[in-house]
């Protein structure tokens, strides 16, 4: 039996770290700021160990639902309880979160060294880790929402960490608001569940307790309660998916994620690549038993996921900012996961989530390392860094290959499994839908390969194009403000070990994380890892867990060929013309390139047109005008009338003594006449 206290400890350690840094270390001033980093690393290190221990001792097929603690009693059949729900999904998430987080914290010791808000950074990081851990452990949907929002808050704080940069502050706001739009869906789903509280109560269930929701969604025939079904079920799922889409940057709520790269790079690595953005996938995974009861919902999830996978990848083609390329890649990969969930490939999706966390974190940390040297994120000013920073180069290439899905790296296994499931279909959605998803995802593979190696080439190959210094110079000439993250600080050389160390760890993970799952179905790897261990482990968390399909060499070949084709295309485009200087050959794509570079004008549509023009200048302005002139105007008018009617009556008061009895007599006569008329 697992100890509840130890599970709590995983969550409470970063909380304690946050409080310690916020309440003690930061007020003490910069002299002790370093301690913040050690405290955080310690907390997460212990957490990581504990998570591994949990993973080790977690028996298959068991969902640990520790007795919850009452937080807020709402109604019979609906109470908010703070509890721990430990199933394989949670367990793996814990490992990912604490593991990646730990690496990122270590990396940050180098990356953030010398920043004046070092302690604040670690405070936020601790807060984030705590929230994320709380999110994955939550056993109550409101509890989950609480941490969901806190994750959003810490993300906001971290994106806007360098808040004196207007673009950072704006990006933070944008991230928060757009994810909040999705959160409204989540909230409505919760509200909707509360609405059903009476039915839950009748079955002795709690409408807000997650396992009870699973039960409620399952049809009676399948041993469930069948409380939520049909259209209601669809709406519930769509609400939850809206929340997931916001957090995981699914179309059309993806626009915040590239902008979120305004935060420090480790933040991007941890939050906007490995963990928080995966929370959306986690949410759908968490409620997979509910989603799987609604084919409509599944279809929506699958199609939006697959579309996003391709859609984001295309935007990645035209991005020049290395972190933005990563960001689009992240959106795209999250699309893979969503698509996988949508077609019912629960195991594969979570497997991909698992592997993605490592290689994507690695890629981001690599980007950060590059930035450390080149002083810019703009790939147009990089080039030739291969020699200066070999570790970074090779680690990035490993990450890229893993991302593209080249055998035998981690990304290959998980992506391959998704493609295979899509090809074969799981029965969760119509076969035509899963085939469509398959085609889209395959296109995605090609695009992924292209932009990944475009990035590798532009960054590391060719000649060095001047870095941050040159960019600042160009911006000055063009009279534009310099983008954030650009500095004169250019020193071509490898990053410190604080940074390289975690990258090495992640690089190793990016290689072996796929094997950990034992995806081919070898009976046992070194006698430790059973066949299809990870996917089966995931499946064991579900009531009717679906086992991974057997490994298909054909599919592996197809995906690898497509991937290699993409890589080849990139090499052809960027390595062939020896004289590549500053102009991206893709700009020859003309309007298509422009559309891609401008992110399909969606940001413009959202911010410029909908929010700026339609909402702010029209709706809000009209309402404001209405408030000032009509609502308040009526008030003013009433006052004006009462003041001036008084003056008007006073005119009769002309000082002539005889007018007064005249008016009085007239009044008397009027009274008589009124009486005679009205009786």
């Amino acid at each position, binding site marked *: 039996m697992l100890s509840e206290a130890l599970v709590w400890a995983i969550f409470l350690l970063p909380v304690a770290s946050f409080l310690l840094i916020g309440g003690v270390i930061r007020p003490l001033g910069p002299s002790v700021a370093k301690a913040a980093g050690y405290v955080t690393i310690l907390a997460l290190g212990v957490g990581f160990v504990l998570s591994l221990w949990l993973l080790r001792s977690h028996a298959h097929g068991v969902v640990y639902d520790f007795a919850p603690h009452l937080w807020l009693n709402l109604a019979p059949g609906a109470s908010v309880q703070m509890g721990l729900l430990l199933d394989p999904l949670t367990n793996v998430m814990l490992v990912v979160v604490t593991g990646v987080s730990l690496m990122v914290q270590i990396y940050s010791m180098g990356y953030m060294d010398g920043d004046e808000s070092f302690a604040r950074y670690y405070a936020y990081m601790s807060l984030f880790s705590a929230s994320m851990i709380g999110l994955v452990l939550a056993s109550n949907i409101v509890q989950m929402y609480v941490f969901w929002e806190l994750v959003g808050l810490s993300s906001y704080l971290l994106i806007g960490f360098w808040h004196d940069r207007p673009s950072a502050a704006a990006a933070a706001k944008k991230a928060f608001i757009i994810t909040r739009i999705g959160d409204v869906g989540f909230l409505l789903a919760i509200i909707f569940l509360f609405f059903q509280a009476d039915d839950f109560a009748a079955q002795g269930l709690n409408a807000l307790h997650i396992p009870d929701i699973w039960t409620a969604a399952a049809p009676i025939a399948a041993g469930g309660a069948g409380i939520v079904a049909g259209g209601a079920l669809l709406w519930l799922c769509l609400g939850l998916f809206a929340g997931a889409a916001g957090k995981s940057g699914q179309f059309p709520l993806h626009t915040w994620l590239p902008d979120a790269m305004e935060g420090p790079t480790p933040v991007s690595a941890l939050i906007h690549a490995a963990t928080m953005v995966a929370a959306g996938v986690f949410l759908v995974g968490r409620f997979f038993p509910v989603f799987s009861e609604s084919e409509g919902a599944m279809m929506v999830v699958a199609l939006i996921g697959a579309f996003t996978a391709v859609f984001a990848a295309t935007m990645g083609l035209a991005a020049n900012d290395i972190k933005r390329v990563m960001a689009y890649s992240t959106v795209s990969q999250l699309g893979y996961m969503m698509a996988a969930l949508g077609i019912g490939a629960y195991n594969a999706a979570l497997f991909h989530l698992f592997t993605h966390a490592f290689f994507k974190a690695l890629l981001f940390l690599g980007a950060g390392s590059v930035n450390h040297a080149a002083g810019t994120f703009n790939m147009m000013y990089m080039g030739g860094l291969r020699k200066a920073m070999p570790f970074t180069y090779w680690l990035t290439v490993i990450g890229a290959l893993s991302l593209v899905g080249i055998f035998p790296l981690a990304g290959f296994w998980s992506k391959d499994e998704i493609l295979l499931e899509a090809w074969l279909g799981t029965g969760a959605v119509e076969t035509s839908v899963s085939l469509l998803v398959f085609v889209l995802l395959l296109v995605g593979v090609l695009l992924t390969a292209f932009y990944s190696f475009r990035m590798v080439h532009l960054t590391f190959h060719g000649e060095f194009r001047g870095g941050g210094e040159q960019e600042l110079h160009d911006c000055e000439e063009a009279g534009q403000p310099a983008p954030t993250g650009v500095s004169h600080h250019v020193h071509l050389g490898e990053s410190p070990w604080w940074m390289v160390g975690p990258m090495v760890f992640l690089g190793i993970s990016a290689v072996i994380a796929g094997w950990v799952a034992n995806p081919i179905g070898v009976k046992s790897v070194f006698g430790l890892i059973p066949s299809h261990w990870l996917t089966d482990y995931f499946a064991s968390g579900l009531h009717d867990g679906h086992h991974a399909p057997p490994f298909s060499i054909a599919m592996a070949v197809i995906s690898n060929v497509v991937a290699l084709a993409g890589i080849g295309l990139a090499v052809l485009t960027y390595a062939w013309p020896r004289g590549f200087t500053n102009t991206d050959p893709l700009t020859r794509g003309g309007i298509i390139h422009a559309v891609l570079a401008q992110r399909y004008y969606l940001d413009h549509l959202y911010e410029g047109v909908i929010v700026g023009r339609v909402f702010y200048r029209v709706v809000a302005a009209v309402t404001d005008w209405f408030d000032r002139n009509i609502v308040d105007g009526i008030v003013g008018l009433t006052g004006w009338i009462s003041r001036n009617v008084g003056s008007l009556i006073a005119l009769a008061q002309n000082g*002539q003594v*005889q007018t007064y009895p*005249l008016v009085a007599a*007239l009044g008397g006569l009027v009274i*008589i006449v009124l009486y005679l008329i009205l009786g």
Partner: protein
Amino acid sequence: MGAEWFKDVVFWALSVVAIAGAVGVVMSRDLFRAALLLATVFVAVGGFYVLMNAEFLAVVQILIYVGAIAVLFIFGVMLTRDVRQGNAPNRLQIPAGIISGLLLAAMIFTAVTTDWTTLAGAGLEAKSQIAQTQAVGIVDIEAAGRLAESGLSEQEVESVAGGGLADLLVGEFVLPFEAVSLLLLAAAIGGLALARGRGR
């Protein structure tokens, strides 16, 4: 007094004098003349009192109104040296005329249409009931009814009138009688204080 027709003739004559005099008072541009016309009206009204067997009142009317008030007016007119400036109308003539006309119409309508006798009879009956319950005196209602039917002779009314007035003034109405003295005192003090002006 005389026969009924004679009374009628006198009544009409007095009416013409009174009304013409009144119109003269309010129309005359000459204040002095207005004051004299006013005295004429007072006299005519006194005549009406005599016609209605209220001789005592007529005497009071002549003494106070003609003897005091009219004279006061004439003094006032002379002292303010405003006689020749005259008695011009103000701008309210038309509305004032309309209002007065309407009020007159209402009054005449009331005077003509109201069945005073019936109602007054009912009132007296009720009054006598109150008198009974208050034990102030006993009223023979039947007798009152008989008398009402037959009508009172002139002499009877006259005797009733002549003997009672003074009694009433020092009897039932002794309080207002005393109060009026205070009123006159106040008016005298006030009038004197105001008329006397600044210097003492």
